């Protein structure tokens, strides 16, 4: 099962991702002739300054951010589905998205624009996510059942509901302009990403991926259930806590850059498992490649389909998530 075709799948996914990155950089609202694209990309001295700006200052960081956030969310989703052994778990389950949303919407609506700009919406969103995560962990704390997956899930749901109610209230009382800005943020967008936002998430994603790969056997053992993993010598509670923390970190960073990007962390790990199985040594790299590909692709469609206006990422992501979900549902029905 899976073993023979894995290298082919990885090569295919890598090529697809590179092609998508190139397409993302070259393709867009502003039409740029081919020769000029190459000149700009190579930073030739005769390239037009305006085109150079579009490609280097605008599209390049945006495309890379999509790839990074896609990979980070797919990695987070893979890890959290393993930790909670729940196919419906996604990185937002720990209350992260609702915490980030409430903080960001509160900032957009209440704080003066200047202050938000000074602080940075990303930082505010990240702090919101971290707060919600902290509350979830505290609520699920139980000495006799440490890191119990059901308790964590239920606590996450409770925290999400609380913050969602708060967000809904804020949207209801705010003026239409602020609501529009807030809704844009809530539906996720890669527009306006700049180079400065990339280094931290790059480093964080790389470190978490390396850490996860170095523990791939422990992660596999976790799939058999906590008791079996424990009896094999895996320290399950510290391991799950680590997974929750790194997931919160990567998801918080992603949310800070693009707002709420749903479904990638939920669906991509499932797609990757269908292709290469559940063994983490293979699953993690493939899920990250697919996540990067899918988000870059979605972003490209979002900014070209209705050009010059842009679709929020959530519109297409939710649409794309539907067929795989139905497929997984059918698969699961067969197994069960």
């Amino acid at each position, binding site marked *: 099962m899976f*073993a023979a075709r894995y290298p082919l799948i990885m090569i295919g996914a890598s090529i697809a991702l590179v092609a998508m990155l190139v397409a993302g950089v070259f393709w867009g609202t502003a039409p740029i002739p081919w020769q000029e694209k190459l000149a700009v990309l190579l930073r030739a001295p005769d390239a037009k300054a305006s085109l150079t700006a579009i490609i280097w200052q605008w599209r390049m960081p945006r495309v890379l951010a999509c790839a990074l956030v896609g990979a980070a969310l797919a990695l987070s989703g893979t890890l959290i589905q393993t930790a909670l052994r729940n196919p419906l778990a996604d990185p937002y389950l720990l209350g992260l998205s609702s915490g980030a949303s409430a903080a960001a919407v509160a900032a957009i609506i209440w704080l003066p624009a200047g202050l938000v700009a000074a602080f940075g919406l990303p930082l505010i969103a990240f702090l919101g996510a971290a707060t919600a995560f902290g509350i979830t962990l505290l609520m699920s704390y139980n000495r006799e059942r440490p890191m119990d997956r059901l308790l964590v899930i239920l606590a996450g749901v409770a925290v999400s509901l609380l913050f969602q109610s708060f967000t809904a209230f804020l949207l209801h009382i705010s003026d239409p302009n602020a609501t529009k800005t807030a809704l844009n943020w809530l539906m996720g967008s890669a527009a306006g990403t700049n180079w400065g936002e990339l280094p931290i998430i790059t480093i964080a994603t790389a470190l978490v991926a390396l850490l996860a790969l170095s523990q791939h056997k422990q992660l596999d*053992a976790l799939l058999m259930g*906590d*008791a*079996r993993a*424990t009896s*094999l*010598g*895996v320290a399950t509670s510290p391991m799950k806590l680590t997974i929750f923390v790194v997931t919160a970190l990567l998801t918080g960073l992603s949310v800070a850059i693009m707002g709420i990007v749903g479904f990638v962390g939920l669906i991509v790990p499932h797609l990757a498992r269908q292709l290469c199985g559940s063994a983490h040594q293979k699953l993690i790299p493939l899920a990250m490649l697919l996540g990067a590909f899918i988000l870059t692709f979605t972003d490209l469609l979002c900014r070209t389909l209705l050009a010059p206006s842009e679709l929020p990422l959530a519109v297409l992501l939710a649409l794309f998530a539907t067929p795989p979900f139905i497929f997984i549902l059918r698969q699961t029905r067969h*197994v069960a």
Partner: protein
Amino acid sequence: MLHRATSNFGQTILSLHNVSFAVGPKPLVQDCSFEVRQGSFMGLLGPNGAGKSSLLKLLYREKKPTSGKITAFGQPLDRWNRKAFAAKVGTVLQEKAQLAGLTIEQVAGLGLFPLSCSKAEEQQRVREALELVELWDRRTENAGYLSGGEQQRLFFAQILALDPEVYLLDEPNNHLDIYFQYRLMDHIKAKGKTVIASFHDINLAARYCDSAVLMHEARMVASGSLAEVLSPERLKLVYRVDAQFAKSAIAINAPVV
């Protein structure tokens, strides 16, 4: 009071001293003390809910005792490094697992997690274990599609590949057909390793155990040789069965003892 489980074997490698374990107000194991000697095959007997599985959970460190002391290989249990301990004490647990997406070979290989050995040795061990449980020819199949009994064989392959000093088996014959029940238990018995196994089936216990601990409502009610432990009065008290019938059942099925 310290019960001597048996005396014909090597040194004591595992001992429990007034061990209790409770979840909330409910005691699951109460005041258990016994010793296990190297090379002995000890049965944990008792009806459903007597506390057998909970006691085993304490031994493979899934749970910590609420009070009392467990010593393994001369060292308190909680001082053992988890992985080093798991390399010495292997388990086969009761509950089913979700294994979808892992191959049979990968799952068997996970049994070797506590061990550091070369790739070649790893493959050799996995192969021998899978051949024994007759799953080697299906090693590339998705373990998620195995039946209950096949999955149990796969978990036996994990512990056989590891071949630890102590085998902790929680209702090891669950889901297994008669052929594999005898085949796997015979194989483990022949190894001469230390085994602690919970059984709800007294006949099977009689065939394999040199000694037994009988549990009833979280307490240890007897320990010693099987004949001592399973007296007619105790059988009546603990299992609520007619002793005459039970005794004859043991006699028929206990040529080894």
